[in-house]
């Protein structure tokens, strides 16, 4: 792959790189940020980065099952967000803050 075509032509690689970059940003967010809301946003970012990969490969291989998978991921993500936000709300109610370290209180 030469430099010119990379700039002029959009190939599946571009999508995969984008996916990887987004995933890394999300991962960094999950590992480093302490705010629960931001953490959820980072997780969403990771999930959607994966979704991009799914769609890309679906396009490349000309099959739909990758895209079907994306729908599943979105559903799960929605459910997970609902649960997570509920937790966030209860944490906030208790401690007036949504810092992740409060989950340490759940340790047995």
């Amino acid at each position, binding site marked *: 792959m030469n430099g010119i075509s990379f700039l002029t032509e959009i190939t599946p690689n571009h999508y995969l790189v984008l996916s990887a970059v987004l995933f890394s940003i999300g*991962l960094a967010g*999950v*590992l*480093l940020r302490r705010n629960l809301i931001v953490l959820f946003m980072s997780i969403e970012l990771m999930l959607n980065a994966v979704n991009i990969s799914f769609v890309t490969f679906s396009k490349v291989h000309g099959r739909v099952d990758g895209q079907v998978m994306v729908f599943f991921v979105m559903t799960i993500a929605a459910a997970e967000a609902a649960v997570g936000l509920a937790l966030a709300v209860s944490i906030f109610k208790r401690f007036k803050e949504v810092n*992740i*370290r409060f*989950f*340490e209180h*759940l*340790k047995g």
Partner: protein
Amino acid sequence: MNTQILIAILLLSPVVGFLLNGFRFRSTNYVSAGAIATGAVFISFICSVLLFVELVGLPAESRTIAVNYFQWIGVGKFTINAGFVVDQISSIMILIITGVGSLIHLFSIGYMHHDKGVTKYFAYLNLFIFNMLILVLGDSLLTMFVGWEGVGLCSYLLIGFWFSDSAKAAAGMKAFITNRVGDAAFIIGMFILFTTFGTLNIHDLNALAPTVADASWMGAVTLGTLMLFIGATGKSAQIPLYVWLPDAMAGPTPVSALIHAATMVTAGVYMIVRLNPIFIMAPNTMMVIASIGAATAVMAATIGLTQFDIKKVLAYSTVSQLGYMFLAVGVGAFGAGMFHLMTHAFFKALMFLGSGSVIHGMHEEQDIRKMGGLKKYMPITHFTFLIGWLAIIGMPPFAGFFSKDEILWQAYSSPRGHVLLWVAGALGAALTAFYMTRLMALTFWGESRVDKHVHPHESGSLMTIPLIVLAILSVIGGWVGIPHVIGETLGHIPNVWEHWLEPLIAKLPEAAHEGHSVAEEWALMGVSVSLASISALTAAVMYLKKGSDSPQKIATSLGPVYRAVYNKYYVDEFYFGTIINPLVKVSRQIWYYVDVNIIDKATYKISDLVKGAGSFVRTLQTGNMQQYALYIVIGVVITLSLVMMR
């Protein structure tokens, strides 16, 4: 009634009594506890009588009632049934056990009424009766062994009944452990007999015994019977394992009467009589049995001369009389052994209960030096004890005369007897007469040496009635086995006893010695009776003459000999020095070096290792969720790089 049911009731009635009393062991109501226990044994006694009547009704050659409830063990060729046999021998035993047992239970109500553990006491007594019945009725050696162990347990429980006194608890332990030594030999004996004959059923063993002579190596039979005899020396207190019986007097006195005089200690004799066809096949074993019996009879009697505890004297007397029984079975006079077993059960139970009555009336005083002149305070006890005394020293026509005389005659005249055995037996009889007269003189006769603040009193009727019944039995009990010479003279009185046991007693293979005349038997009888009379008279003079100090003089003049006898020949010290202490020492070393230093250390090391590893792994679990996420990421990265690098 169906014999199967009858035997079941016979066996289970004491169990029911045991359970009823056992579940309410905290109760101190001695009336209900005693009534339950005595009733339970009395029901067994009625069953025994019914079975006996049934047995008498059967024709002489098939006098056996055998029942089989279920198969207990079945492994290949080895089958043991929960089977019980009532025959000529065991019917006598169950009559003694339940009959004398009922009387002693009755006596116990009076004797133990002040005790807090009275319910527990009666529960143990009932359990003992049950086990004793299993012992005598079991149709195989293993069933017998179950009862054998069971009576050992009850003996232990009852010797250590007042366990808060550590000396008494130790006496219980001593009895148990000494018996364990014998029991180990008994088990080995069973192994040997099983490998030789392929069965443990007593009837089969007895039937096979005569055929073994030409079929297999006789050494096995000798060894097996010898092992069984060692088991008997433990249970029946013979040299070398007799040491536990005198200490067993720590238990309540009725227990001494029931277990350590009348029933349990005779189990060894019973076992040998039961297996007499096998023992007959082993003349060497029989010789050992006779010698040990004679030696025990004399040695225990000499110790009895010097003791001052009323129960200790009786205990050594029991050891000595058991020696007579072994002497009898050792010379092949199994019937005479059983006969002495029965008469001894009567008069020794009587004397133990009498001593219990004395101890009770003297407020727990057992030292005969502090008694004397009790005759006027306790007339009934004195009179019954007097009968027991006449019986044990072998005065005709009391029970002991017939059985002891039969044994002495057999020791002399039997093909396996020897004149030395007779000498030992006669000497033992003389010694017995001496120490028993000494006991009578110091306890009941002469001047009172009772403490001023002790007021001896006669016991209540609960205690005197059993004494009276046993006294009657001690008089007439011997009349079932009147020897031929006397029977002939008095006009054809048959020897019922010999006739009754005949079908179960094997004949000695050796031909009887020729030339034992009737005159000889009379002569020997006269010698032993006059020996006993002379020594009894001597004792009476020595201990009753006012201001007589001849016993002390003799004791001082004998010096070291007297001290050795008084200290029971230092046998206990010898055992401690040569066996127990070295064993304890070695065990302690093994405990320290092997257990503490190797086994314990190894387990501690392993647990430290696990603990250390655990505390390291625990640091990974912080509860910080983001750290967990990081672990996942690291894991994924490592896995992916491994996958990609391939």
